[in-house]
C-alpha cells in the first residue's frame, strides 16, 4: 500500500475506530453496569432476552463480538493489497490456530462433532481451516493424517508423537503458539510497510509478554529444566533477546526472575504476587504501548495492526465482564475474569 490516498483512508478509519477502544476507567464503569445496560450499549439485548441456557447465550455473545471485530477487520483491509494485506490478514489467524487446537483436543478426548463445532470460532472463509472435513474424521489418527497433508504437517507430526507416547500436551500448545508468532515475524520482515521499526516494536511487545509469561509458567509451575524452557521461548522479542532469554531460563523463583528482567519489565512487574498478577500488568502495558504506537506511527498498516490487537484485547475484556455477569459473579471475581482475557494472549490460554 503506497498511495497517499490509501494511507489517509486507513489512518482516518483507524482514528475513527480508536474512539471505540476502552480505557481503564471505561472497564471500571462497565464492571459496574447491569447486564441490561451492557446489552443496550453493545447491541446485545436480543441475545440476553432469549430464553436459552447461559452457555448458549455466552456463545452467542462471543460470536457477535468476534463478528464485530471481523467486520472492522474487513473495513481496514479494503485499501490494503499485497504484503501489507497479507500481514493484517495473518493477525486473525490466531483464531484459526485456536480452532486447530480445539479440533485436536476435541478428537483426542472423543468429543462429539456438535460439541467440538460449538467450540470453534466462526471465521471468514480465507482464514478458515477445512473444519467440516476435519470434524468428520472418525478418530485422532485420521484427523492427524489429514492435517499432515496440509500446511500444519509439523504440528500434526508433533501431535502424533504426543498422542502415541502419551506425553503432556503442553508442547503442542507451545508449538502452535510459536508457529503463530514466528509466522507473524516472517510476515513483518517481508512487508512493504514504511514503518518497519514501529511494526517490529508492536510484534516485539506481544512476543516479550508471551515469553515472560511462558518463562514464569514453565519454570515455576511445570518446573521444566532451563534447556527445555529456553527451547519453548521465541528468541526474537522486542526487548528481551536470545542471550537474555538464555540467562533467564536458568533463574529460579518469581522474585528472582522479575529481578533479572530488563526494564521496563523489571519495574513494571516489581512486587507481583503471582503469574496472574504479572499477566494483568503485562496486558495493560501491551495495551498502552500499542495505543501509543497506533497514534504515533506514520504508517497506516502499523496503526491498523495496533488497533486490531488492542480492540481484540478490549473485546475479550468485555466478554469476560458479560460472562461474569451472566454467571452472577461478584466484582472481585470479575476482576480476575477480566485479567484472564484471552484475546491478546496465546492459544494456550484460550483453550
Amino acid at each position, binding site marked *: 500500500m503506497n498511495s497517499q*490516498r490509501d494511507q*489517509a*483512508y486507513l489512518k*482516518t*478509519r483507524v482514528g*475513527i475506530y480508536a474512539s471505540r477502544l476502552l480505557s481503564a476507567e471505561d472497564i471500571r464503569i462497565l464492571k459496574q453496569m447491569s447486564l441490561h445496560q451492557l446489552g443496550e450499549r453493545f447491541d446485545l439485548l436480543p441475545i440476553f432476552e432469549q430464553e436459552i441456557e447461559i452457555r448458549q447465550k455466552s456463545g452467542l455473545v462471543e460470536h457477535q463480538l468476534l463478528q464485530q471485530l471481523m467486520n472492522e477487520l474487513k473495513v481496514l483491509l479494503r485499501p490494503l493489497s499485497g504484503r501489507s494485506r497479507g500481514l493484517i490478514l495473518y493477525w486473525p489467524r490466531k483464531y484459526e490456530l485456536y480452532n486447530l487446537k480445539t479440533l485436536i483436543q476435541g478428537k483426542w478426548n472423543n468429543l462429539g462433532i456438535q460439541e467440538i463445532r460449538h467450540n470453534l470460532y466462526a471465521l471468514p472463509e480465507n482464514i478458515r481451516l477445512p473444519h467440516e*472435513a476435519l470434524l*468428520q474424521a*472418525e*478418530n485422532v*489418527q*485420521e484427523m492427524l*493424517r489429514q492435517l*499432515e497433508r496440509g500446511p500444519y504437517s*509439523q504440528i500434526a*507430526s*508433533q501431535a502424533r*508423537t504426543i498422542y502415541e*507416547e502419551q*506425553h503432556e500436551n503442553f*508442547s503442542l500448545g*507451545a*508449538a502452535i503458539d510459536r508457529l503463530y508468532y*514466528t509466522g507473524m515475524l516472517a510476515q513483518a520482515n517481508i512487508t512493504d510497510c514504511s514503518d518497519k521499526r514501529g511494526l517490529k516494536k508492536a510484534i516485539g511487545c506481544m512476543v516479550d509478554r508471551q515469553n515472560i509469561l511462558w518463562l514464569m509458567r514453565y519454570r515455576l509451575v511445570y518446573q*521444566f*529444566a*532451563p*534447556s*527445555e524452557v*529456553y*527451547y*519453548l521461548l521465541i*528468541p526474537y522479542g522486542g526487548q528481551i533477546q*536470545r542471550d537474555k532469554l*538464555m540467562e533467564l*531460563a*536458568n533463574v529460579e523463583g518469581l522474585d528472582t526472575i522479575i529481578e533479572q528482567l530488563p526494564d521496563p519489565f523489571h519495574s513494571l512487574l516489581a512486587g507481583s504476587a503471582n503469574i496472574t498478577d504479572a499477566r494483568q500488568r503485562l496486558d495493560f502495558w501491551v495495551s498502552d504501548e500499542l495505543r501509543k504506537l497506533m497514534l504515533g506511527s506514520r504508517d497506516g498498516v502499523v496503526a491498523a495492526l495496533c488497533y486490531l490487537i488492542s480492540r481484540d484485547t478490549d473485546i475479550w475484556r468485555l466478554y469476560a465482564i458479560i460472562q461474569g455477569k451472566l454467571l452472577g459473579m461478584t466484582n472481585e471475581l470479575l476482576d480476575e475474569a477480566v485479567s484472564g482475557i484471552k484475546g491478546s494472549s496465546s492459544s494456550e490460554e484460550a483453550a
Partner: protein
Amino acid sequence: MFSPLPMKQISIKVLNEDLPGASVILAGLNNFSPDNRPYAENALTEIPGQHFREQYNQAKSRLDKISALVSYTPTPFDGEVTTITEAELEQANQWLGEAWETCSDFEERQRRLTEESRNISQLETSLANFSNLDVDLGQLQQDQPFLESSIGVVSSNRVEQLKDAIGLDGYLLFPFLQSEKESHVLIIGAKRTEHSKLKSVLDTAGFRPLDIPPELHTEPETAKSRLAERHAAVDENSQQLNLEIVAWRANALQGLEQAAQTLHLAVPYVALGEAARKSGKLARLQGWVPAEDMAQVEEALQQKLPNAFVLESRDPLPEERAIVPSVMRHSRLFKPFSSLVMQYGVPRYGEVNPTHLFALTYILMFGMMFGDVGHGAVILGAALIWRRKLGSFTPFGVAAGISSMVFGLLYGSIFGFEHLFHAWWIAPLSDPLYMLTVALLWGIGFIVISSLLNIINHLVQGDRLGALFGDNGLLSLLLYSGMLGSGYSLYAEGSVGGFWATLAILTLIGIFAHKLIEQEASIGERILVAFIETFETITGYASNTLSFLRVAAFSLNHVALAIAVFTLAGMMGDTGHWITVVLGNVFILVLEGLIVAIQVLRLEFYEGFSRFYAGDGKAFKPLTLS
C-alpha cells in the same frame, strides 16, 4: 429475455411422511429452489430431517474418503427414482462406517510404510554422508561409559534454537546434513549420572531419532546393502497392501455402488435444509419456481404424491427481491455469452440481464479490432472443425469469425494483404484520426447506454434515490454530458460553453452533497470520503471514455503488425517470403487474437458492467437428481 424469468414463491403443505417423496418429485423437475428463510408462522417450529441430514453427512464423508483411497467413482445414476427412508440411510451409513474402518486401517498402514520408507531414505542419506568417514555408525549409538550421543532429524528452522537450548545443559549439536525443511543432527555430551534432561527437550523439539538397528552397527558398505534390503521389504509390503486394497475394492464394489445410489437419492431431502418445517403430522416446504413452470409442478405433485397436499403460490414481494434466485434460459446461440456474463456475476432478480447486449457489443468490438477476412475465416473454420471440443462455446467462435470477416471486408484486408480488394468502408491506417474518433464516439455511446441501464435497474428495484444520485445515476450521466459538452465546446469554439459548464458544476455539487449526506461517520471522514468518491466519478468517466480508444488502436495495430510481417517477408528469398507470411499470420492470429479477445472482455466488464450491473444476484440452485 432481457431480465431473469418471473418467479413464484410457493408453499407446499404435506403430511410429514410425504416430505421426502415431495423433495424427490421436485428434484426430478429441476425447477424448485428451496427458500431457507425462517418461517413467519410460529406454529411450524421443528426442522424435519435433522437426524437424516447428520446421517447423510457422515455417510457422504465416509464414501468420499473410501472413494479417494480405493479409486472408486460411482457410476451415474440410472435406476428407478425412489424415496429413501431414514432406516435405509442409516443402514448405508453403518455399512460405510464398517467399510471405512477397514479402509482407515489401510490408510494408517500406508502412512506407516511411507514413514518407514522415509526413515530408511534418511538413513541412507546419513550413511552416504558418513561413508567418507568410514566409521562404524553403531559406535555412535552404543552405550558409552562417558559419552551420550544421538543422531536424528529436526526441523531446519529450529536447529539454532535447539543448539542453544541443549547448550545450556552442556550438550553439543552438529548439523551434518541440512535441507530446507529438515536437518540431520548429531548430539554429543558428557554422560550424566542423574536423569538426562536431553530427552524431554528433544521430544519437545520434535526430534526424530534415526534409530539405527543393531544389524547396521557395522561398516557403511554392509549397512548400505542391509538398508537396501529393508527398502525392498517395505516396497514388498506396500505392494502387498495395494493388492489387499484392490481385493477389498472388488469385494466391496457392489456395496459401494448401493451406498452411492442410496446417498444419491437422499440428496433432495437433505438439500431441502431449513426450507421445510413441521409440527405434529403436518409439514410445509417453501421455495422458488419459475412462474412458467407452475403448472408442471402442480401436475407432478398431483400425479405422484400419495396423500393430499396444498399448493399455494404468490409473486415475490418488493423486499424479497434480493433473495429471489435468478433464472435465465437462453437459446443455444447465447449460452457462451451467458457463461461469460456469469463470470462477472449473477443478475439480481428484476435486473437487466446484459447477455444480449454483451453478445452484440462483444462481437462488434472484436470484429472492429481484429478485422480481416482471412483471419476471420480461419477462426470460423477452427470453431466449426473443433465444435465438439468447444461444445457450447462453438457459437462464440463462429460469431467472432464472421464479425472479423465482415470488418475485414469493410477494411479491405485479407491475411494482412491490404490491396487485394478495395475497402468497403475505410482502410484503418489511411485515416487513424478518423478511426480514433469513431472509437471515442462508440465508447461514449457505450457508456451512456450503460448508465441508462443502471438508472433502469435502480428504478426497477424501486430505488429512486439510487437512480438519481447513485454512481452512474441520472446526475452522474448529466455530469458526463456536461463534461463532454464543455470539452467539445472548447475543441470547436475555443471556450467552454456556459450551458455545459453550468450543468457540469451543478451536477457535481449535487453528487458531492449526496455523498456527504449518505455517509454515516464523523464530519472529517464524510468530507474525505465524499471528496474522494466524487473525484473518482469524474476521473472514472474520463478514463473509461479514453479506454475505448483501444478499439481503434487495435484495428491500427492489426494493420501495423501485418506491415511488419510483410516487411520481414520482403527481406527473405522466394521460399522464405511465403514461410514468413504464413508464420507471421499465425503469430497475428494466435497472439493478437488472444489479446483482442481479452481486451474486449475487459472493456465489457470494467467499462460496461461495472456501471450498471450489480451481478450480486442469487444463482438459481434447484433441487436436482443429477
